[in-house]
């Protein structure tokens, strides 16, 4: 059930009515039922997957907490009798028991994800190797459909389990509440990957009918619809035409396709997240922001701190840090310092953990070599820019350009172009085609074709370009205004007639220029595929 479908709007409307009619203490149960109903729409057979992840995580966390309580009680009762060394070795023993439970949970749940998402990718690679060694045998592909949102809820639940292992907060004892945390329907499709301590603050509490909050939520949903239906879906045909026909569209078309895709992905993904946050607001559940004006970033590192924030934070907290500061890594770093010098030794943990994180980030985005290369390209750019830090410092000391308007604009444009070119791996069918198309931008000079009507042969009309241009201006304008605080708060302070004109204008724009007009069909959200 797509967010942009009539079914979803009907579902949301009925839920909204029910949610504020029933006694407040049952609101979270109502949300749980709605979430499972929403999930069942994607196929009742998939419910088993999310139920097993929920139950296994519940069991693992319950066991870890019980071990923690047992340890506390034992130490309290034997405080006088135990020596410092005995206490320490007992704690290590109990931590090991907790670790075994955590490991079981991680292996069980990531195995489900791996089988559902990556088994056919592995079979395809094995078959390629068999073909290479001229063997006639081939492994058959398995028919496994991907359960809705499996990457999101698995990561979210495993993050929760790791937090419990670390003793960050107590485990949730109510299975129903944990089930709601896993299945909360707005964020099942495209995230964000929420933390239990963030979401639980508002998810299980009673919510009154707060007119301002509900209006703000509806405004945010409308803004999401505008981005998705008026911008992303309108530019989609041009992106598809260029990237699905690499033989016909090269040179300057690749450049145009790259920029169009940057706009499409931004409008699609941030629009979807606007809807998620807006639906959350309507229901009184505060979902954290997942974007912070990423296209205003001055470097790739900054960009990744502002784009898909929850995924980046998950990887940093649960993979990058544990891998880079684990005992074997610290020992390796010390060994390298002694044998290969200070410079190499201190880089080892950062480099190895960064490569691993980006490899996994790539694979997380899709079971294809395109995404692996995409991840490694991001990693390469990040590490090169890290190595160039002394050069940047020298440059700024020498030329005093830092903070100047023109230089900042240069940095922003550079980051957008760099990110857009790396993202070409998303669009083309394979790695070699992507490289070929990238180099065609540098070698094929067909700029004049664009001026001779080439732009109108991409599947979108002059009117579409006009609408896209105005849409982009609105998008950039809103981003600029949002730098100094909530745009909705600013609008709410305007006279009522101005407020009405703005929101009614946006509503009309969605109605007239969105998926409901001119024969467009709302397409799947790009990030739904995860």
């Amino acid at each position, binding site marked *: 059930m797509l967010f942009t479908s009539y079914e979803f709007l009907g579902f949301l409307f009925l839920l909204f009515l029910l949610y504020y009619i029933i006694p407040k203490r049952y609101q979270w149960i109502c949300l749980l039922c709605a979430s499972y109903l929403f999930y069942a729409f994607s196929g009742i057979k998939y419910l088993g997957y999310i139920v097993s992840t929920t139950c296994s995580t519940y069991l693992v966390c319950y066991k870890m907490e019980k071990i923690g309580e047992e340890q506390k009680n034992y130490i309290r009762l034997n405080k006088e009798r135990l020596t410092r060394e005995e206490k320490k070795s007992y704690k290590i023993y109990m931590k090991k028991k907790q670790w075994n439970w955590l490991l079981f949970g991680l292996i069980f749940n990531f195995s489900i994800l791996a089988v559902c998402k990556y088994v056919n990718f592995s079979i395809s690679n094995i078959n390629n190797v068999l073909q290479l060694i001229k063997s006639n045998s081939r492994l058959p592909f398995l028919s496994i459909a991907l359960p809705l949102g499996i990457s999101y809820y698995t990561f979210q639940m495993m993050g929760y389990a790791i937090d419990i292992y670390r003793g*960050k907060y107590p485990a949730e004892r109510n299975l129903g509440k944990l089930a709601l945390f896993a299945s909360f329907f707005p964020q099942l499709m495209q995230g964000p990957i929420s933390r239990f301590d963030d979401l639980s603050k508002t998810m299980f509490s009673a919510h009154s009918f707060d007119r301002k909050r509900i209006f703000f939520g509806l405004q945010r949903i409308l803004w999401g619809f505008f981005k998705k239906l008026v911008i992303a879906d309108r530019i989609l045909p041009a992106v598809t035409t260029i990237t699905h026909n690499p033989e016909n569209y090269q040179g300057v078309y690749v450049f145009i396709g790259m920029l169009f895709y940057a706009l499409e992905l931004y409008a699609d993904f941030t629009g979807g997240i606007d809807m998620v946050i807006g639906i959350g607001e309507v229901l009184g559940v505060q979902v954290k922001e997942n974007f912070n004006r990423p296209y205003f970033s001055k470097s790739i590192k900054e960009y990744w701190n502002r784009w898909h924030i929850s995924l980046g934070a998950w990887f940093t*907290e649960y993979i990058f840090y544990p891998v880079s*500061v684990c*005992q074997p890594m610290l020992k390796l770093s010390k060994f390298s310092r002694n044998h290969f010098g200070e410079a190499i*030794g*201190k880089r*080892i*943990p950062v480099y190895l953990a960064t490569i691993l994180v980006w490899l996994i980030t790539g694979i997380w985005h899709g079971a294809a070599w395109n995404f692996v290369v995409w991840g490694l390209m991001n990693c390469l750019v990040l590490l090169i820019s890290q190595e160039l830090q002394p050069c940047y410092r020298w440059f700024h000391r020498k030329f005093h350009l830092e903070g100047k308007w023109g230089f900042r604009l240069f940095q922003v444009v550079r980051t957008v172009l760099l990110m857009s070119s790396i993202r070409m791996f998303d669009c083309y069918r394979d790695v070699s085609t992507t490289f070929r198309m990238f180099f065609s931008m540098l070698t094929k000079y067909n700029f004049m074709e664009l001026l001779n009507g080439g732009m109108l042969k991409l599947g979108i009309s002059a009117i579409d370009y006009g609408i896209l241009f105005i849409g982009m201006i609105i998008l950039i304008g809103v981003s600029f205004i949002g730098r100094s605080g909530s745009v909705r708060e600013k609008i709410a302070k305007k006279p009522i007639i101005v407020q009405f004109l703005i929101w009614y204008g946006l509503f009309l724009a969605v109605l007239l220029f969105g998926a409901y007009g001119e024969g467009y069909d709302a397409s799947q959200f790009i990030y739904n595929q995860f």
Partner: protein
Amino acid sequence: MEELLAILEELHPEVDFRTCCTLVEDKIIDSFDIVSLISEIHSEFDVAIPAEEIIPENFNSAAALYRLIQRLEEED
């Protein structure tokens, strides 16, 4: 404390680590810096800072980081 300050100053010579107490909040140090720092601390103090201790409160200032090192040394 002086040894720790020397490590921090080598990482970011432009920052006054004696007074700054918003190192993480103000993004003066990032995840790469934190990992380099932990590796240096391990080499200098022989203290391993586990991943669960990597929270802004422990890395926001040189003093907070020094307190963390002392606590981990005591626990060891």
